[in-house]
């Protein structure tokens, strides 16, 4: 995989030769500003549903192994 990644980066580096002086980077392709909606409360996902797909749910929470090992 190292060889493949090098090959891809080599291709990508072709853009290094372009003169991009003064060009603004794209942040969003459609001009949008401050998209807000009314702050209306809506029912949220039920806890049981949110936990239904969890590999190891426990007492209403997601259980994980210890970060300390």
């Amino acid at each position: 995989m190292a060889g493949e990644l090098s090959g891809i980066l080599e291709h990508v580096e072709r853009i290094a030769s372009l003169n991009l002086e003064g060009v603004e980077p794209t942040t969003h392709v459609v001009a949008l500003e401050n998209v807000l909606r009314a702050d209306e409360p809506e029912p949220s996902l039920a806890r049981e549903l949110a936990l239904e797909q969890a590999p190891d749910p426990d007492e209403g929470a997601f259980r994980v192994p210890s970060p300390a090992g």
Partner: protein
Amino acid sequence: MSPTGAGGAELRELSAAEAIGEIEAGELAADELFDAYAEAAGAESLNSYLWRAEAGTRAAGGEPLRGIPVAVKDLFCTEGIETTAGSRILAGYRPPYTATAVRRLAESGARLLGKTNMDEFAMGSSNENSAYGPVLNPWDETRVPGGSSGGSAAAVSARLAPWAIGTDTGGSIRQPAALCGIVGLKPTYGAVSRWGMVAFASSLDQCGPLTRTVDDAALMLGVMQGRDPRDSTSVGIEAGVRRPTRGDLKGVRVGVARDFSHHAEGVEPGVAELFERTLDLVGELGGELVDVELPHAEHGISAYYVIAPAEASANLARYDGVRYGLREDGEGELGTMYERTRSCGFGAEVKRRIMLGTYALSSGYYDAYYGRAQRVRTRIAEDFATAFERCDVIATPTSPSVAFELGAKSKDPLAMYLSDYFTVPMSLAGIPAISIPAGLAEPAGGGPQLPVGLQIAAPTFCETALLDAAHALEQAIAFDAHPGRRDS
């Protein structure tokens, strides 16, 4: 026994709009159509579906789609129905909600026929990156259907679905549509809500139709598009989407960029020849061919393979074995659990892109890669804006080649990436683009003829003009071959 023959084969020849017409006229029952497709999908040999509804499933079918079945790429969340994104890491995942695009189709009277196979997390141009096996091209089962929406394209082409939805980040609707001989539309970024669509590269991902006719694409986009409070980047198409009726191109200026057309390096002779023939049709239809320049389009692939992996590396951080999806045993240690889960859950291409993306975003390299790529993106968008001052739409081949053989590019990621040479710039610029069948051509290495796509692009939110131009060319090209009938 259906009066229309074994397996409802004749019913499955109808376009979605034709089927709706027959249902409205009382000549066809929506349930009969649904069962014909469900039975055909259940007996398929292309591996285009990952999940199928059973024949006999009954659901309400309201206006305006009247119960027409729809196939949905497995990248869209469907409540209670397995959604894998083609990945092992989401095997068995049943989402607690349905994507807005799918919900809008259902509310418009469409019925879910199945979930289609795809490249893992929509990363690929051949469908060989699915964790559930490749999809075969219905025109030649030794070849790929394109990707990443290859299951959707193969199913529509093989009459296993009347139409389907897919997603397009750099060509994932248009390229498989071209390779399977159908219509594929990537709308303007923001036309359709991304809510409930498993994220790959959020600034590029867009949902769109894969259909057999341009009119069906307009019909489907019309019901799916619109602003969604749950996706702040969705704006919808303010003017709406009008069904196309145009049969000519009078007054339409069609731009062609010499260096970004059939003259580009790596375009197969058969593809180039059909593209030239299509340009002749523009004049015959009363349109005007205009030379334009897209000097930065050739750098699209370079910019794309920085931006898309960078965004993917962030989006895919969520698959950590904690809240849903696969968890591998970490022998009591959290870090080991993350590492094993992601090592086992992701395929090679996904890992490759996560590594590329994190590298491009890393301290010290950010400006050289991500910063530069986003500036090239600005240049590409400016090139299109300048070109559209002189023309109404721009035409290119959709893909440099016809469908290639399974395995032909799977060992060479860069060669695979270059399949999207013509489709990536439109994604980077956020503009709408459609692929329609241009005809059949012999592959460069010889063999039976295969479909070639024509890509047409338009300025942002000009979907109606785009669909009109595509419709006029579709009528003139009169492509009516399909995998079961090549001699048209």
